[in-house]
């Protein structure tokens, strides 16, 4: 099984998120970068599949030169090859991103392409689906359980309390969500191998899209610092009064 996993480099945000003064980007002066969470699980899933069934895992990202760091992170988790679609710093929209990935898939005999259901930063919810349409392949999204059998995959997710199962012939595109597995920690030999591994590079073409970002901003918060009702169990009577006032207790 030849698997391609598409990952994205995103800022690691912890306690706070801020925007640069020009309103165009997340302020990353005080943060590092990591693989978007759903996609880290996609890498783990691909590695597990090839550990069981053989084959190899290629990992791809579209981003600046610095995104090679996330490719090496994926190599350390067990991916075999890395491809950087290097951008000049401009943000690619979902249509151009899908087109650039499709070009790579057409040039290699992949059986399965895995992506995250949505990137943590832009949250476009569509690159995987657009990629599948570009390729004419079937696609399932938001998947939290994947099994490979008889030239196809069965992809499962939950919706409104019911389980949905999708049977897809290969080749196929599947977008996954965190919870499909618990990604391993990279081993020391894995990290060493990743450090030395080559990264294939190409520069895809940027194209304008019909949806254009004007500015990013932090939403106004409706909440202020909490009023402290008290300490420990002694606060319970006040707590119950608040719940009564809000009509939560019926």
């Amino acid at each position: 099984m030849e698997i391609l996993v598409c990952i994205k480099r995103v800022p690691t945000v912890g306690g706070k998120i801020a925007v640069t003064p020009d309103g165009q980007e997340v302020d990353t002066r005080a943060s590092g970068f990591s693989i978007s969470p759903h996609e880290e699980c996609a890498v783990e899933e691909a590695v597990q599949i090839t550990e069981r069934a053989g084959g190899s895992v290629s990992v791809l990202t579209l981003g600046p030169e610095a995104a090679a760091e996330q490719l090496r992170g994926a190599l350390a988790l067990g991916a075999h090859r890395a491809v950087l679609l290097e951008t000049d710093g401009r943000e690619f929209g979902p249509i151009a991103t899908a087109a650039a990935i499709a070009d790579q898939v057409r040039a290699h005999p992949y059986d399965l392409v895995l992506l995250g259901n949505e990137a943590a930063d832009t949250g476009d919810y569509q690159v995987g689906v657009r990629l599948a349409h570009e390729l004419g392949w079937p696609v399932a999204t938001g998947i939290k359980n994947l099994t490979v059998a008889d030239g196809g995959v069965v992809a499962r997710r939950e919706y409104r309390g019911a389980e949905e199962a999708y049977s897809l012939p290969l080749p196929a595109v599947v977008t996954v969500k965190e919870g499909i597995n618990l990604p391993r920690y990279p081993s020391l030999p894995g990290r060493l191998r990743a450090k030395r591994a080559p990264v294939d590079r190409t520069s895809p073409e940027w194209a304008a899209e019909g949806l254009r970002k004007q500015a990013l901003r932090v939403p106004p918060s409706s909440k202020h610092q909490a009023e402290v009702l008290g300490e420990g169990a002694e606060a319970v009577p006040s707590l119950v009064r608040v719940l009564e006032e809000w009509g939560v207790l019926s």
Partner: protein
Amino acid sequence: MTVLTLVELDGGELADASLRALTLARSIGDVNAVIFADAAPQNTLASYGVTDVYVIESSSLEGYAPQAWARTLAGLAAETGATAVLAAGTDRGNEVLAHLGAITGLPMAANCTLVTPDGGQTHRLVRHRWAGLLLEDAVMDAPVALFTVATDSVANVSAETPAPIQVHLHKPELAESDLLVRAAESPAGAGGASLATARVVVGGGRGVGGPDGFAPLEELAGLLGGVVGVSRVVTSEGWRPHKQQVGQTGTKITPELYLACGISGAIQHIAGCAGAKHIIAINTDPGAPILAHADYAVIGDLHQVIPALIQALRAR
């Protein structure tokens, strides 16, 4: 201007997320709804200002097939001359609109909180980035604007004057390939109230201490008619299943009350619970970030506070 809106059912009723999408749709133009069901909840649709509903019966399309749903919307958009097509920002809504974007080659904006026609083929919009931790002001130029609605940020408000509603039975034209990927559905486990739509959520974080510490939270949730949700550390430690996770990579919740117990409040968790009407934090640390997002706080150990609260509620 006709605005075509995909609506979903949840347990036989119109899904809350769809009611929110209809509320936003009404601010843009005349709302036509599309529903994949054997019957439309006409009265509810009319009370949200829907003038026409297109009903796609199971005789023409049984079960959920995302590409077929999108193909149906594409056909109806052309037929009605819609200037916008939208859906709730649910798993299905985002998936179907992504297919519609791919089929038509049009851009699609996910999880919008505001959409305003701006003349010609232009819409100005505000949408979520970082699951709502940031807002993006954007401009969309497209003959038909495709977008989904952020279900935890747009209120659910019925129309002041309900419209008389016309029901159209519609048979979509589908290709075999549209039906290749479709859901085989089976009921999952015991079911129970869903985290996404629960009226009360009792949240547990690292402070719960381990997989054995959740029984009091379950008991409290039961007394309050709610469900238990957890933070990311709880699922990554394997204490509870991932489907109980509240947050950016888990479920976004919109309860009347979120009681966050032993949860420090990482920003990704806030992205999941910011849609709660009221938040109360129980935490040993008065400096925990969650307190900046809560209405009230109790400073203390949840292992003492929750049993006392259970006792007080039982005594009422």
